């Protein structure tokens, strides 16, 4: 493939992250509060899977910082946990892309589970969180949503021909 960088590609990636931030902040009914999917981590994993040469740990760090600002947590906590899963995804993106979508979902469960666990542990070390295992629920919800999420974002990617 010739290096055919579409100038709009960067903007589309940015827009997808922007959407994920908005979804992260969207008010939900109280029962859904604990089950909010980790949109930002999902978007990050998607872009690393399909464009590993363009989106990597640097992106994960910047995105994590913005997420910290949104959540009001100590700067760098989300950044660290997102960089960790970005690294893990980067190590195995070739293998993950071979799997059918539902199996990818299982891996997403593990990845986002790691993300949640790291974030929660660090939050606890800083003394900012309660004692409740419900914090792992978002990873399950994200995994269930993953196939549809992947199809939609991949459609967007093909629409704009981002390579």
């Amino acid at each position, binding site marked *: 493939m010739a290096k055919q960088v579409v100038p709009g590609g960067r903007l589309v990636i940015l827009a997808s992250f922007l959407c994920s*931030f908005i979804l992260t*902040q969207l*008010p939900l009914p*109280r029962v859904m509060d604990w089950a909010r999917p980790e949109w930002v981590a999902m978007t990050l994993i998607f872009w690393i899977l399909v464009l590993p040469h363009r989106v990597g740990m640097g992106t994960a760090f910047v995105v994590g910082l913005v997420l910290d600002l949104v959540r009001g947590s*100590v700067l760098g906590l989300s950044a660290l946990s997102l960089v960790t899963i970005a690294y893990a995804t980067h190590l195995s993106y070739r293998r993950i892309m071979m799997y059918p979508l539902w199996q990818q979902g299982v891996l997403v469960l593990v990845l986002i589970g790691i993300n949640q666990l790291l974030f929660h542990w660090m939050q606890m070390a800083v003394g900012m969180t*309660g004692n409740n295992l419900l914090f792992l629920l978002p990873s399950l919800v994200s995994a269930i949503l993953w196939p549809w999420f992947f199809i939609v974002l991949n459609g967007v990617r093909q629409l704009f021909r981002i390579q």
Partner: protein
Amino acid sequence: MLIGADLYWAKMRDTRAWLSVAITPLQWLVDLPSRVAGEVSDQVVDRQLLLRENEQLRSETLVLERRVQQVAALTAENIRLRELLNGRQRLSEDVMLAELIGVNPDPFQHQVILNRGADDGVYEGQPVLDAGGVMGQVVEVSLYTCRVMMVTDARHGLPVEVNRNGLRSILLGQGELGELVVDHISATADIREGDLLITSGMGGRFPRGYPVARVSSVIRDPGQPFVIVRARPTARLDKSRHLLLVEMPDTLTLEPGVPTPDEPKKVQAVESVDG
């Protein structure tokens, strides 16, 4: 390194405030749908409904005005009595209206985001009220927005007293909406279900006399050293959209290390007596 800096370096607060300005449009965008929906429903509302609401509001105003009349007389009486006792006058506080524009997505943290910031004179530690009572306090100020920690947050404690008899205690958040715990109440203390808890004004952060919570259950277990007292906040923490930021009078701000305006005077007085 960044984590450490944010935790231990005081300057990071300003940096953070500036960085937060960058996500202000994001928060505004998130809030947009509900605001548009509100405006649309304002536009297409039924005329009959408006008339009825108008009438209801008018009668409510009448009732409130009657109460205010009484309050004016009571305030005057209170001031006279305080003068008789040579007591210090109670200072009235200024308020600023604010609107809620966001909620912290992290369910472990009970925080909301308001549309007022340092630009409007909001400062850290400022009390926030809604129509029902105390809602929380400002913990982070950015230029145009601020973050408010609600009284139910697991890290929040608030000095209160029982309105009926002035029994003082600390009200702790539990990290659960609609549940607060009154700490360290001895078994013989006079506290009952239904008691109103008001801010005691100790600690100098909150003005005295605003309702905070109503005692919902008192469990006296002989095996426990203290009574377990649970309370329910009077403010509608998850429903209120229009809030009040209270500005504490300057003379009451107490900061560790900074002498209060009274202290130097006292020292002078002592010196003059010595001389």
